[in-house]
């Protein structure tokens, strides 16, 4: 019984700290939500802990604001990042399968190469990337945000580890004996087996590129092609003190709600996915 007491104390301490940390994490979102439901005049009077009834009006104001086309931005973001997630996971699986299932001369070299660029920051090539995109006539378009995601070393590594643990080569050989073509084998047999890994990585790619700001900010110029993070940045750059504060909070709310919704539905998979690949993105 003697050893139970210190554990009890530690347990209380642990719970207190956890509650404080959770409070810190949620507090900001709470303020955001509260402030998004109040009018500008209300907000000037000071902070209140209770929500107001102004959310719909604020949402309407955001929707009708021509200078910050927030909903257009969300649509752009959805297009770009939906495509990125799809392309990225498909081609990463393809690359992983190519390196996993076949033996060829450059196999080892290719694998080593991909592992070497695993954590290379995209920022170091940004200058050349910008010039390349301009020369290819893709400046100020959404394509350069989508196509490069074909080569994602981190996703590849995740897929490769997953294949190692869950795809027996005998299955592929069986498919070959049954006369299935290589490409068909990949699409019909390997992809279904990889579904869990693809789901996890699709979520991460989606979240990662949804939040991506550096590259889009360099490439996109015109208002109607801006993605959400750029719109937020222009909001910060504008002379914001003259703005309707309720509208600003609502814009931020609108920008993060989609991700929070995705997260609440898929949190179990996301948290499990963090450790699976062991790669931070």
């Amino acid at each position: 019984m003697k050893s139970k007491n210190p554990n009890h104390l530690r347990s209380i301490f642990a719970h207190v700290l956890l509650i404080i940390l959770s409070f810190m994490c949620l507090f900001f979102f709470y303020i955001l939500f509260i402030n998004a439901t109040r009018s500008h005049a209300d907000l000037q009077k000071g902070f209140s802990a209770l929500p107001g009834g102004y959310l719909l009006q604020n949402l309407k104001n955001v929707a009708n604001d021509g200078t910050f086309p927030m909903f257009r931005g969300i649509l752009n973001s959805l297009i770009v990042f939906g495509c990125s997630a799809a392309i990225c996971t498909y081609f990463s699986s393809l690359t992983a399968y190519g390196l996993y299932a076949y033996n060829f001369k450059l196999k080892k070299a290719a694998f080593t190469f991909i592992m070497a660029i695993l954590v290379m920051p995209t920022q170091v090539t940004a200058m050349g990337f910008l010039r390349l995109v301009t020369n290819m006539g893709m400046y100020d378009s959404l394509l350069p945000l989508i196509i490069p995601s074909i080569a994602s070393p981190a996703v590849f590594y995740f897929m490769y580890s997953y294949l190692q643990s869950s795809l027996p080569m005998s299955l592929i050989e069986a498919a070959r004996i049954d006369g299935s073509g290589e490409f068909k084998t990949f699409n019909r047999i390997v992809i279904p087996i990889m579904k869990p890994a693809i789901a996890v990585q699709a979520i991460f790619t989606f979240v990662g590129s949804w939040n991506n700001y550096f590259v889009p900010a360099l490439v996109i110029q015109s208002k109607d092609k801006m993605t959400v993070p750029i719109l937020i940045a222009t909001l910060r750059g504008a002379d914001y003190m003259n703005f309707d504060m309720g509208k600003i909070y609502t814009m931020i709310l609108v920008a993060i709600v989609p991700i929070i919704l995705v997260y609440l539905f898929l949190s179990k998979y996301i948290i499990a996915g963090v450790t699976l690949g062991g790669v931070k993105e």
Partner: protein
Amino acid sequence: MKPKNKKIDYSKWGYLFILPFFVSFFIFSLIPLVDTIRYSFFEYYRSGIKEIGPNFIGLENYISLLGSDMLKYAGNTMILWIIGFIPQIVIALLLAEWFVDARLKIHGTQFFKVVIYLPNLIMASAFAMLFFTMFSTNGPINSILLSMGLTGKPIDFLGSVLGTRSLVGLMNFLMWFGNTTIMLMAAIMGISPDVFEAAELDGCNSVQRFFFITLPQIRPILAYTLITSIIGGLQMFDVPQILTNGQGTPDRTSMTLIMFLNSHLKSKNYGMAGALSVYLFVVSGILCFVVYRMTNNDDPDGSKAAAKKAKKQRRG
């Protein structure tokens, strides 16, 4: 020509399957990289509407960067990273240890995990914008502090060096500690329970167990977390950029390297941007190499040092 049925050569499929990756990498990463390196040796910038260069000037960009504020920005980046990283790793270690300790009987583990991971998914730019409005002189934080009587007049958080840096550090902490906790938790759960049982029999208390068993055992993952976090820190951009509107205010004390790069790119100063990129490339290249060694080594270094340390402890 009859195909040999016995032995079909599948290797061409291998090449075909990995082709898209390498083509895409070649076009969108390798060509830009070479281009970046090439222009780092040129005088090439835009002044007004006139384009100067490109004229070959050798290493001049590199030298003038060393004379500029680059080192100061490198220092800023490091300070901002440390402010966020130290609390992050300490809290993450504590939480990970608690979550796996069955004797503590933490209630609602799943709930806490979901909550602490949440900030990681929030768009950094929106998060920074939110902090900017909340901590502005007439924002809700000041209004709460005023009404509680904790301060006489509004605090100008973003007007002071300490305030701005702390805010950036706080945001980085909030965004990453959940992720680190979950990573470390997986590492701790990977330790063989026999080790813990043996320690218990030897009368090890929880503090000793943490320092002499858990820490040395998860050393590889700790090192991995450290390096990836350094690489992430090197790329720090969104949060300080939006919080300070790209100015690194006050007096450029929160300007990071990537913000510096971004301002060169925006003003189309390609030569300088190239040289700065090459500096960043070299540093991250070294870090990449370290990570590569760690992810491709079955017995990553660190275990030996841990064993030595344990031995020393036993003797002492």
